[in-house]
């Protein structure tokens, strides 16, 4: 079995230092400064974390949301290589790159959050494995998946450098490429399995706090909900980045691929929405929706702007065919459906008995998160400039 052959891609030939890139560089630089401060003076010097709120913005956004949004990688891989839909192959590489960079920055984000960041390798050391821990499961699967993502990237490196690099590099690349050609099917499936495992286990994390998580979010099926929303957000992410990259590089938006892709989103959001409604009904916690608290407001926002609205929008043929509305609907699900959901689970729904005040992230926490996202976007731009990621532009339209 060999993977679906990729349609022709080529490096983007565009000026690198655009005004947008300069803004990103500035934000990245600021993030680095705040990051240095954090490493020199400790977590307490820069975060609003405390003994009641041990997990904050960096875990909720940089790590948990990062992992979910990088889910475009495994859903796209499954669509193209397992369900064998060759026509989507042009989105395969950008989605893969996003996942690879996304998970890499999840690791960076996690290291910034870890008190003893230099021990980040401990979960990989068998003597310290704790199979009872959902976090261990997340950790080990993310490490393995990140490795798989880098292995899957080798053919792209090979395509770029075979024939135009020193002889020994050429030899290594040809050798790796030949072997990978035979076993790539294994890594493709392994990557999807690892993703299903850790996306769901990420939801298991907060199941350990039954007395702290607000009833609108606390359910034994959190792992199922996390998995469903990670699958659901995969294609919106591909669409979001596809349209953004096209605008940014002044290219044609690949609507003939993105529009049919968008048709598959609503059923997934619908399924997620349906499971949540059933869950809330079964647990008889509907009355919390109208309790008028921060939590009830966030829940309505999440289910409304992040569930019902994008779902209905994407069911409409007319809106789906318009790049603008497609972009808006996808962004709504990404921001309100998934990002807000992860933020809610990790520190809005988290209501410890002895809390003094609600945790609100500090400026420093925001600046580091923004710095990381800027760095990720810069890396994306560098990668698509160096490697054949985005589809080759057709000469005739």
């Amino acid at each position, binding site marked *: 079995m060999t993977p679906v052959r990729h349609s022709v891609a080529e490096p983007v030939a565009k000026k690198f230092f655009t005004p947008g890139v300069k803004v990103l560089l500035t934000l990245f630089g600021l993030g680095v400064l705040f990051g240095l401060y954090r490493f020199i003076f400790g977590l307490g010097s820069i975060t609003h974390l405390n003994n009641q709120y041990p997990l904050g913005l960096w875990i909720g956004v940089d790590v948990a949301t990062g992992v979910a949004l990088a889910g475009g990688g495994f859903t796209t891989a499954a669509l193209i290589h397992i369900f064998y839909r060759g026509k989507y192959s042009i989105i395969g590489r950008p989605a893969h790159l996003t996942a690879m960079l996304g998970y890499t920055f999840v690791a960076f984000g996690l290291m910034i959050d870890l008190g003893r960041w230099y021990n980040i390798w401990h979960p990989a*050391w068998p003597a310290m494995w704790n199979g009872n*821990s959902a976090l261990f499961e997340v950790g080990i699967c993310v490490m393995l998946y990140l490795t798989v993502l880098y292995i899957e990237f080798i053919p792209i490196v090979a395509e770029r450098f075979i024939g135009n690099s020193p002889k020994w590099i050429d030899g290594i690349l040809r050798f790796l490429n030949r072997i990978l050609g035979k076993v790539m*099917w294994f890594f493709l499936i392994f990557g999807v399995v690892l993703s299903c495992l850790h996306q769901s286990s990420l939801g298991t994390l907060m199941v350990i706090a039954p007395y702290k998580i607000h009833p609108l979010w606390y359910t034994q099926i959190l792992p199922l909900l996390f998995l469903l929303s990670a699958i659901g957000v995969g294609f919106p992410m591909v669409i979001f980045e596809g349209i953004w990259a096209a605008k940014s590089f002044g290219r044609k938006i690949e609507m003939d691929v993105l529009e049919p892709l968008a048709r598959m989103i609503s059923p997934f959001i619908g399924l997620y929405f349906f499971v949540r409604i059933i869950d809330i009904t079964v647990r008889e916690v509907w009355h919390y929706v109208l309790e008028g608290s921060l939590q009830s407001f966030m829940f309505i926002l999440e289910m409304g702007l992040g569930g019902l609205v994008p779902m209905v929008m994407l069911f409409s043929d007319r809106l789906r065919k318009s790049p603008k509305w497609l972009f808006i609907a996808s962004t709504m699900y990404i921001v309100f459906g998934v990002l807000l959901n992860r933020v809610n689970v990790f520190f809005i729904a988290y209501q410890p008995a002895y809390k003094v005040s609600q945790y609100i992230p500090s400026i420093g926490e925001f600046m580091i998160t923004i710095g990381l996202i800027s760095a990720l976007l810069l890396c994306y731009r560098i990668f698509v400039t160096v490697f054949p990621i985005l589809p080759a532009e057709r000469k005739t339209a």
Partner: protein
Amino acid sequence: MDLSRRNFLKCTAVAGSLGMVNSATLVQAAHRRPVSPDWLGVLVDTTVCIGCRRCEWACRDFNQMPNKPIAEYEDKSVFDELRRPSATGHTVVNRFDNPQNPQRPYYVKVQCMHCNDAACVSACIVGAFSKDQETGAVKYEPWKCIGCRYCMAACPFQVPTYEYSNALTPRVQKCTFCFENLKKYGRQPACLEMCPMETMIFGKREELLEIAHDRIRKYPDRYVDHVYGEHELGGTAWLYLSGRPMWEMGMVKFNDTPIPSYTETIQHNLFKNFLPPLALFAGLASLMYIFKREEERDESSEGGEK
């Protein structure tokens, strides 16, 4: 076992290739870790405590934490607000009203409960927390710790605290049961040795429970008929006798299900003998094979139009 096995198979069948295992129905089949009759504990009689806070002093003294002269612990104004253990003090005493005798308030000492089936032990990604099988103390090994603070999110008593101001080697801080003393000499924790009122009794947990129920029987007017920690969350090493329900005095009302059974049931079913992941892999591989065959047939019949 049979029940969970059947449920598990059913779930796996339903979840199919999507790899969703809905374990909601399995939570009740909670596992229990074996509890040793030799495990030690402490019985706290909150009706005896006078709130002198010498235990707080002794705790800092033994654990070599920054301390104040013992006289300063006489300051009663600290009772105006509810305090919690912190990275600079493993234990605190809080004051609560005594409706029966306003002149004689209740004092509740708070520290790690050393659970029989502890959430932190289950949650820790690197096994930095462990239940000492000999003494029953929940101990923490900083050298393993990566500083993720998931233990703090997991602990239902919100006991572990963090050295946020330590940039390089921050530790999770919590009551150690004065482990060195306990393990080497079988000695009671420093807070007990210091207590002038004998508020606390040290001994085997099972014997302490007998003493507790004996006291309740003898003085039914003095105590509510509940030993906090006997059954809560599968039982804790530290037990409380009180004149008011403990959940009216700063503690949370818990049911008897140990915290780890909420997550471990899910975890262990998802990974039972690695079958579900392998099944998912096999399912996806089959799909890949089928779809590829189909595609190739289409291509050849259409004369390779694509």
